[in-house]
């Protein structure tokens, strides 16, 4: 569109893709330290596991479609939901978000790579091996007792069920080790992102001119650094309990299962924000570009994000309202949890205000982002309901909670991940994803999502607890469960369409050009895909939207920004 107005250097001749033998090509991916290649590795890895964990979810839903089903055994069912949760959080959510951060942060701040490229590669491969270790348990989990298989204690792995006495075999060890290994990878990436944003910004890019995407990734990295640590500590304590006769959590010897819960949720709650803040990051890029307006209230958005980061560190025990805390303790966590609603509300209002008065183009990325705003609103409101401790005494561990957090994890995060892929795929591959397939993907996924997760709230209100491999036929949950399962299949079809779109468009997609969406951040001033060095000339920026300034020399942002 407006390409010619941008001072984009054509790629230097040696960056031209040359035909290389596939072994060399493979080798170049394995040894790469380029942030873009590593970013793509993260994303491809995550999409692979998304399909795996999605398949697990489908098996779960087949088992629950009717009461007293014998599709899988109870043991296998427990493994399925444990692996589904662990995979989605640690092998899909975290890697894909770090993938986007890796790919985009240097491009958006006008840098040529991350601050520590080799640490970056090391972190990715650690995370990758963590995932392999987790799934290797399926073959390697047979312990001395000939028992066990994949981990089966739930992704929250409450003590003392994880003690040797109750879970012999090695599956829990694989689980703990996998999380320790991938956790170190995550820490490396977090440190890298922090260092990059603080030290590699191009000339003129002050902190308050960073794209909000970069701000949020910075905050996520800080949060990761703070929260992965207690998780890793807890895993190590668990292994000490299991093998060295420690008694941290082992109740029979006087240990405290509650201590595990505290460690786990001090990690686990902020983890939700580690996953959802990048979804906000994506919305902060996509919504303005497709509404054709600057983000409304940039400073407030930054402040709200920092606020969420701090408040989210004080709310963990809202996962523990039923463990018998004192009334004062419960009350404290009610208040802190409700307070998260304030900065979150600000964000929703700012997105609406950004769209207000705009000229909204509903291309696929924007469709997903709009649905995100709607679903995130609902997820936030059910979150408020769960923060009301007495109501949580009813709802905790019921399908209502499952519905709530899938609204966050799927309705908000996965929707925005799809938005991000439709939005940045052209940058990374030079080709547009098919809009037709994209629309099919969007509508099918939206419908499937609502069939499944809206219904789950009701079955939870009717008293159905989570983690049960089957239920009695007389509980009034039959029809609802059947509906939930059918929605699962609709979503599965949509995801397969998406996977097909990724492959098909890679070969057949329309050429994208440098700036297909007429966007405003620096990554769109590079060729698609960007060359290894990103920018031939170091960019200089004067506002939050450098490309807007270039496209509107008479009306640049830096005249108006506060």
């Amino acid at each position, binding site marked *: 569109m407006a390409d010619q107005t941008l001072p984009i250097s054509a790629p230097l001749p040696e960056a031209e893709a040359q035909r290389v033998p596939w072994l060399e090509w493979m080798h170049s991916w394995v040894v790469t330290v380029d942030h873009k290649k590593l970013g793509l590795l993260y994303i491809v890895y995550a999409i692979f596991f998304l399909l795996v964990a999605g398949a697990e979810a489908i098996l779960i839903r087949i088992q629950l479609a009717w009461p007293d089903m014998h599709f899988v*055994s*109870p*043991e296998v069912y*427990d493994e399925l939901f444990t692996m589904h949760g662990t995979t989605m959080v640690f092998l899909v959510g975290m890697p894909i978000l770090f993938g986007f951060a890796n790919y985009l942060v240097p491009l958006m701040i006008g840098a040529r790579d991350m601050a520590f490229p080799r640490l970056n590669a090391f972190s990715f491969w650690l995370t990758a091996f963590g995932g392999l270790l987790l799934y290797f348990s399926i073959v390697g989990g047979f312990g001395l007792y000939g028992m066990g298989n994949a981990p089966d204690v739930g992704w929250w792995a*409450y*003590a*003392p*069920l994880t003690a040797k006495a*109750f879970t012999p075999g090695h599956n829990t060890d694989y689980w703990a080790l996998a999380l320790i290994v991938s956790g170190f990878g995550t820490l490396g990436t977090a440190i890298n992102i922090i260092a990059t944003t603080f030290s590699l910004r191009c000339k003129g890019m002050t902190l308050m001119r960073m794209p909000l995407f970069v701000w949020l990734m910075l905050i996520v990295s800080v949060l990761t650094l703070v929260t992965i640590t207690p998780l890793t500590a807890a895993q190590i304590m668990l292994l000490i309990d299991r093998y060295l006769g420690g008694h941290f959590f082992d*109740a029979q010897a*006087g240990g405290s*299962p509650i201590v595990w819960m505290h460690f786990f949720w001090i990690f686990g709650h902020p983890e939700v924000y580690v996953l959802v803040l990048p979804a906000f990051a994506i919305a902060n890029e996509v919504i303005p570009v497709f*509404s054709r*307006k600057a983000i*409304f*209230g*940039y*400073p407030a958005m930054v402040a709200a994000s920092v606020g969420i980061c701090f408040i989210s560190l004080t709310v963990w025990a809202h996962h523990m309202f*039923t*463990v018998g805390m004192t*009334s004062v303790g419960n*009350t404290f966590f*009610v208040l802190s949890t409700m*307070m998260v*609603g*304030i900065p979150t*509300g*600000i964000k929703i*209002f700012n997105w609406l*205000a950004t*769209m207000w008065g705009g*000229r*909204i183009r509903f291309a696929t990325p924007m469709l997903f982002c709009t649905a995100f*705003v709607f679903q995130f*609103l609902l997820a936030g*409101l059910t979150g*408020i*309901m769960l923060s*009301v*401790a*007495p*109501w949580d*005494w*009813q*709802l*905790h561990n*019921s399908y209502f909670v499952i519905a709530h957090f899938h609204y966050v994890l799927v309705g908000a995060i996965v929707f925005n991940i799809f938005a991000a892929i439709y939005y940045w795929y052209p940058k990374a591959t030079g080709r547009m994803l098919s809009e037709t397939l994209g629309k099919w993907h969007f509508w099918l996924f939206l419908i499937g999502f609502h069939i499944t997760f809206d219904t789950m709230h*009701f079955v939870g*209100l*009717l*008293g159905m*607890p989570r*983690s*049960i*491999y089957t239920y009695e036929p007389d*509980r*009034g949950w039959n029809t609802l469960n059947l509906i939930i399962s059918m929605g699962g299949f609709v979503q599965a079809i949509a995801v397969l369409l998406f996977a097909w779109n990724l492959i098909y468009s890679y070969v057949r997609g329309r050429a994208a050009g440098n700036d297909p969406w007429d966007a405003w951040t620096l990554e769109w001033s590079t060729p698609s895909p960007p060359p290894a060095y990103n920018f031939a000339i170091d960019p200089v920026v004067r506002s939050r939207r450098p490309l807007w300034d270039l496209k509107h020399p008479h009306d640049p942002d830096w005249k*108006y*920004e*506060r």
Partner: protein
Amino acid sequence: MPSLENLEWNLRTLEPTGGLSSLRLTASIFSVLPALALPVFAQHPETTPTTLAPLSTPAHEIFGLSLFVLLITGAIFFSVAGLLVYVIIRYRARGESEHEPAQVYGSVQVELAWTVIPVLIVVVLFLTTARIIFAVQDAPKPKSALDVTVIGHQFWWEFRYPKLGIVTANELHIPVSTHQRPEPTYLRLLSADVDHSFWVPQLNGKTDLIPNHPNEMWMDPQRTGLYLGQCAQFCGVEHAKMLIRVYVDTPEQFTAWVQNQQRPAVDDAAVAQGRQIFETEACVNCHTVSGTAARGTVGPDLTHLMSRATIAAGAALNTPENLHAWIQNPNTFKPGALMPAMQLDDKQIDQIVAYLLTLH
């Protein structure tokens, strides 16, 4: 149990439980929504362990609070979602246009407004919630209260009535608690192995049973009947079949039940052979039958087995055929239950079952 009759009942009983009563009226109108929508789905109103038809004070308090919260969050939802829909319709691009819309970067006044309003909402929600937390959690325990100790085991419940000297399993009997004759039940929650959670939605929210961490909860059911629930904290393979049945009895029924439970096991000479097999097999290591050599505590107390409607924590009805099948191989109902298949032949099992059938 969202039938209309019950709804009416809710409306009537909401008032006397006190608190929030002015809000309750508006709130109960709101409750019509889910109550009307759900019967479509709930095929078994009498056995659905719903959170929407509370029958004891704590459950009522929670329900009233939840309606209030639903009202506020519902209002927020409709206003914000309405705005979103408006924006989508009003500002969607129609046709191609060369020039960009007016750029607005923010507005301090507007942003302040939408910070202050949520703050106020949070204050209101927080104060109402805190009131109910203290009202339920710190309610003074009356002298007339019945004490029951609940011990969670991997995949079954043990109920002990310390003052009455009763031990039973999986089916809890408690007296109805009326205004004239308040007799709430206080549960002391312990665990013999891993974490469990006691949840009978119509009587109260759930509270966890955690080893080394005794907990307490109470309920004062105001209507007799059978209420269902189940373990709500994943506790291993058979977590799904760790069901709870609470019988709320009239005072007379309850006294009769107590008297029966306090009697030692029936000793019927006609089934001496079955009893002898039972006592020479490993059964006695795990089960108790009072007044006999069976003093095990790994499994449920069988002294009054036949006073229970189900076996194996609700996994099967307590019929002779099911008892036979269970002893032959517990895995038929509950694969992974912690009772071994004892490799007895059919005749031996028949004799054991004949013996068990006398344990009223």
